[in-house]
């Protein structure tokens, strides 16, 4: 309910908002979180738990909340698994529980058997019994998390790159102080201050009503910060509603910021982002991330309206709401008294139960007693009563054992119990410094007995910690600590000569007098003492894990799922460690923590992708002829970012029909294709020839200017990595072509050899792929067409031979004409300066009409080359194939003086066995069956002995053809093998094939000279 006449500084009561939760309408105010607005509307249950389907209410008020998971909005704006405590209210917001607490739930129905479903239940029952596949779908649908989104995200998300000298994470007292200290004492240092909440101030806001000086301090210092922020050329950036969720190497920190309106806003036609991911590179980092309160442990501690003490206080102070009328506070430290005093000031009935024995009370305890609050000291809550929400508690007196026997904790609970009524229980078991971020990138923690917490390691390069994360909990002490750390940071940056340091007392490291973890074994041995609410992990699960032999906390975590999920163990993990320590009978420090890894909180995929979606997902490369292909209605295929025409369907043809037509045209008359995407590397220098002969397997020393040669490139392991034709322009100048997809990596590899091994060679490389357009004219009538297009070159087959090139003028454009062929037909490739590409393409198309010239795409190119048995590196080879494996021994030079790259490896024994995969042809017995690429060839024992790498229907042969890698294939010619394929509606089928040569068409190479 909302507290009448509450003076919350953060709620704007003049701005009512309406919203929908679980299909019911509610009202809230500007400044409310979804959680606080629902408390105001007396909503008690927010979701059901993950495993047991137990109804759960709120436990926290911010990022620490494990239970209240909701999905926000619907359709293209649907966002799953948000914490209701972190969603700030906006008008029209709609949310549903990740698992609806108000509808029928199978998991909750089987409550009596929950005790037989401890950690490991699903594994032992289903996976170990090998029936998981039968039940997986139905079990997964029972889990308590939101459904995955099914629609494309409508919103936009931004990436923002930030650079700063100092990054301060946490905008509470310590963060604000550190920022001001830096800005006041440095003239140049830039500062970014990040806080996950909408308003700066952190937990200090909780002190406002009880300590007026805190309010004044906050007002004054936030004003000073804003003055710095609003200066011209401001050095200060403040990011609020922004969570620093990951810290990577070299002080690279990622921060997710939520647009305060909760949605993308459209202004002046520009859509602003729903969330922004800030990528911050910082010189120095000051962590002021604060601490999370940890709950106390007792039976059925997961009932609704059992909350953290400081969260109750935050709801009260910041939002002016409370979810009970009769409150009991329970804990082992002084912080519960501050909540009690607050409640008392607001005339809310409350009682304190302190697990610590009486004696040595702090001022605040006496103050609480003086103001008439009922205080019971030396009592423990054994059990919470109630079915789904709390109605009362059972308590017992705690007795300390002077010398507890092995396996028993130092406490003993009196058998006599009393029952107290309440409708809200707020607990505090101490504080866990938020060390997560510090540990993402190598930071370690140590257990500090004095403050009973895991603290970040004291010294780390370029990083300081201050405030509650350093266990300096009281706000006035935190100011001193933050000033000191800011001074030390300035000193290490050379901004001040000597850091001025104010002393801190030892007592301030445990200001709230947190007693040691309260883990009486009688309580831990009860069922339903929940440690991790989000993953339904109980103390007995930890005990079971230990009984089954898991000793390390990392193993216990994985066996029980403690600390998994979006919660990442914020409230539960440290209690879990304490419980494990109790069961293992070792000190906390020996158990240690699990490893903290990014991300600290859930990060939207949309935010990770940023604007790099849709058309901006990957760069798209087009040739200069691209528009013509689009006009011709080509279908495209993406090859290493290039958009290559795949085939050119005409008059409603499907791919098969179009490819057959294109292939026939090339084989019978004339085809043309855009070959501009092939990688081209300009190789110059007096050692260019020597260089080529080192990186290719064949000989290059005698290749004359005017000639071209095919080369095969291997790595030192002897495996094929690329192939292509290189052209000798003159003795010091070659143009190498590479595969379209391999251009960048080949170029990089060649540079590596030149720069790191052969710096003595006079060779320079330059990528010229984009500088040339290449039009291939292919088919028996190619010569006739070229003679029309180009008058200054003699195309006679005896003077311009296969694998030669000539400079010439094509339609008035300077060109290099290469007579090379990837189809076996007579073919010329016209290379012109890239901008003439479209012009030459059009001229070729017009001049070729008498021979019905047909443009063809990559699919036909593949069919034509497969008919000739030409390999495609990366399709017919996979990085584990030697030239011998693809039957290309002919290309291995025997007498080159330099041991070229890969050569030595060819003789190692493993590459010379008979059972290696070798490239062969496959002819299906039923010549019309085209097998899918990737289909496995199986032995008579049903084991894979190879696979199909290329498979097409060959129009020239009127049958299917395939290339395959087959174990020992080269010695299995004419044998029959079986290929296993899946056929539509027929299921698995074995296709008998004959092993053949990989050359299917024009075996003797008679077509290469074309028609006279």
């Amino acid at each position, binding site marked *: 309910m909302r507290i009448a006449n509450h003076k919350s500084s953060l709620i704007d009561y003049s701005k009512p908002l309406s919203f929908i939760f679980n299909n019911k309408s509610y009202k809230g105010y500007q400044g409310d979180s979804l959680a606080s607005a629902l408390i105001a509307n007396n909503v008690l249950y927010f979701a059901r738990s993950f495993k047991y389907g137990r109804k759960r209410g709120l436990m926290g008020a911010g990022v620490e909340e494990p239970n209240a998971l909701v999905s926000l909005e619907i359709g293209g704006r649907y966002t799953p698994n948000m914490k209701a405590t972190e969603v700030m209210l906006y008008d029209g917001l709609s949310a549903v529980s990740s698992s609806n607490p108000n509808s029928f739930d199978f998991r909750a129905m089987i409550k009596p058997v929950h005790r037989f479903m401890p950690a490991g239940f699903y594994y032992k029952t289903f996976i170990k019994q090998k029936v998981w596949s039968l039940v997986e779908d139905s079990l997964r649908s029972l889990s308590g998390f939101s459904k995955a989104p099914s629609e494309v995200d409508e919103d936009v998300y931004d990436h923002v790159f930030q650079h700063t000298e100092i990054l301060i994470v946490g905008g509470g007292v310590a963060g604000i102080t550190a920022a001001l200290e830096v800005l006041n004492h440095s003239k140049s240092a830039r500062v970014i201050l990040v806080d996950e909440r909408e308003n700066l101030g952190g937990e200090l806001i909780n002190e406002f009503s009880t300590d007026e000086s805190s309010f004044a301090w906050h007002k004054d210092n936030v004003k000073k910060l804003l003055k710095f922020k609003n200066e011209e050329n401001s050095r200060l950036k403040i990011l609020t509603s922004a969570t620093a969720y990951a810290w990577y190497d*070299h002080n690279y920190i990622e921060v997710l910021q939520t647009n305060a309106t909760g949605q993308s806003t459209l202004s002046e036609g520009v859509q602003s982002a729903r969330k922004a991911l800030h990528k911050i590179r910082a010189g120095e980092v000051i962590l002021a991330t604060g601490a999370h309160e940890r709950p106390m442990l007792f039976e059925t501690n997961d009932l609704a309206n059992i909350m953290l003490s400081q969260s109750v206080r935050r709801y009260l102070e910041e939002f002016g709401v409370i979810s009970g009328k009769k409150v009991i506070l329970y804990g082992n430290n002084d912080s519960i008294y501050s909540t009690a005093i607050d409640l008392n000031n607001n005339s809310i009935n409350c009682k304190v139960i302190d697990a610590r024995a009486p004696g040595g009370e702090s001022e605040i305890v006496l103050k609480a007693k003086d103001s008439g609050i009922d205080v019971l000291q030396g009592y423990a809550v054994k059990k919470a009563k109630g079915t789904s929400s709390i109605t009362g508690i059972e308590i017992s007196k705690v007795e300390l054992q002077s010398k507890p026997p092995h396996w028993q904790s130092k406490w003993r609970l009196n058998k006599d119990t009393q029952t107290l009524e309440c409708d809200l229980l707020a607990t505090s078991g101490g504080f866990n410094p938020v060390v997560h971020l510090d540990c993402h990138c190598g930071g370690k923690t140590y257990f500090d007995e004095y403050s009973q917490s895991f603290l970040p390691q004291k010294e780390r390069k370029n990083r300081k910690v201050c405030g509650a994360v350093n266990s300096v909990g009281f706000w006035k002490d935190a100011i001193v600590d933050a000033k000191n750390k800011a001074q030390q940071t300035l000193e290490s940056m050379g901004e001040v000569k000597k850091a001025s340091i104010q002393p801190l007392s030892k007592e301030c490291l445990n200001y709230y007098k947190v007693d040691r973890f309260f883990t009486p074994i009688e309580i831990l041995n009860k069922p339903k003492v929940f440690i991790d609410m989000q993953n339904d992990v109980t103390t007995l699960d930890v005990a079971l894990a230990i009984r089954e032999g898991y000793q390390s906390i990392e193993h216990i975590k994985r066996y029980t799922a403690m600390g998994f999920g979006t919660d990442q163990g914020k409230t539960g993990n440290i209690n879990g460690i304490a419980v494990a320590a109790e069961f293992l009978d070792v000190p906390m420090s020996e158990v240690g923590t699990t490893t903290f890894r990014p991300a600290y909180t859930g990060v939207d995929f949309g935010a990770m992708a940023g604007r790099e979606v849709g058309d901006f997902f990957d760069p798209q490369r087009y040739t200069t002829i691209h528009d013509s292909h689009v006009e011709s209605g080509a279908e495209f295929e993406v090859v290493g970012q290039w958009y290559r025409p795949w085939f050119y369907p005409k008059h409603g043809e499907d791919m098969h029909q179009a490819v057959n037509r294109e292939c026939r045209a090339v084989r019978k008359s004339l085809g043309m294709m855009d070959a501009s995407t092939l990688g081209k590397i300009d190789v110059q220098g007096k050692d260019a020839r020597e260089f080529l002969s080192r990186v290719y397997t064949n000989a290059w020393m005698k290749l004359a200017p005017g000639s071209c040669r095919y080369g095969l490139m291997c790595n030192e392991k002897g495996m094929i990595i690329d192939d292509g034709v290189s052209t000798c322009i003159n003795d010091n100048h070659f143009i190498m072509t590479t595969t379209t997809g391999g251009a960048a990596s080949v170029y990089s590899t060649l540079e590596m050899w030149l*720069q790191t091994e052969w710096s003595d060679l006079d060779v320079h490389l330059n990528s010229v792929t984009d500088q040339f357009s290449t039009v291939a004219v292919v088919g028996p009538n190619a010569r006739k067409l070229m003679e029309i297009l180009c008058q200054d070159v003699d195309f006679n087959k005896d003077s311009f031979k296969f694998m030669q090139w000539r400079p010439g003028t094509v339609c008035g454009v300077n060109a290099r004409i290469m007579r090379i062929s990837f189809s076996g037909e007579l073919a010329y490739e016209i290379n012109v300066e890239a901008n003439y590409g479209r012009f030459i393409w059009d001229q070729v198309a017009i001049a070729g009409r008498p021979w019905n010239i047909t443009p063809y795409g990559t699919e036909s190119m593949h069919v034509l080359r497969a008919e000739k048995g030409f390999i495609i590196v990366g399709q017919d080879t996979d990085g584990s194939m030697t030239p011998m494996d693809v039957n290309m021994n002919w290309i291995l030079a025997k007498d080159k003086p330099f041991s070229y790259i890969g050569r*030595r490896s060819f003789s190692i024994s493993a590459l010379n066995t008979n059972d290696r995969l070798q490239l062969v042809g496959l002819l299906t017995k039923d010549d019309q069956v085209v097998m899918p690429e990737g289909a496995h060839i199986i032995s008579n024992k049903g084991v894979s002995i190879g696979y199909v790498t290329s498979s097409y229907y060959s129009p020239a042969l009127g049958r299917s053809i395939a290339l395959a890698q087959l174990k020992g294939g080269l010695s299995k010619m004419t044998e029959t093998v079986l290929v296993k394929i899946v056929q539509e509606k027929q299921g698995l089928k074995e296709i008998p094939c004959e092993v053949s040569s990989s050359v299917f068409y024009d075996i003797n190479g008679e077509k290469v000279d074309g028609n006279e």
Partner: protein
Amino acid sequence: MFLIDCPYCKESRDQNEFSPAGEAFIARPQNPEALSDEEWADYVFYRTNHKGDHWEQWVHTAGCRKYFLVKRSTISHEIIQVSTFGEIDSENAS
């Protein structure tokens, strides 16, 4: 995400711009044919996988395209030194 000083560009740039290129100072043998299979395998496959300060090659792929040397701690990922190939070799590297 490392921040790497390119010794050629003389600028500190994000790791995005660079590619790693393996352990440094693995010289290609002068006469591979004279090596046993084991010796050849040692050059092709085996690396020290050193824990501690490690010399390695990087290339400024999206920048000057130059290969250079980086001394990096494989424990903390701190980059201790960068160098061009001329300045440092296996003899004077520490």
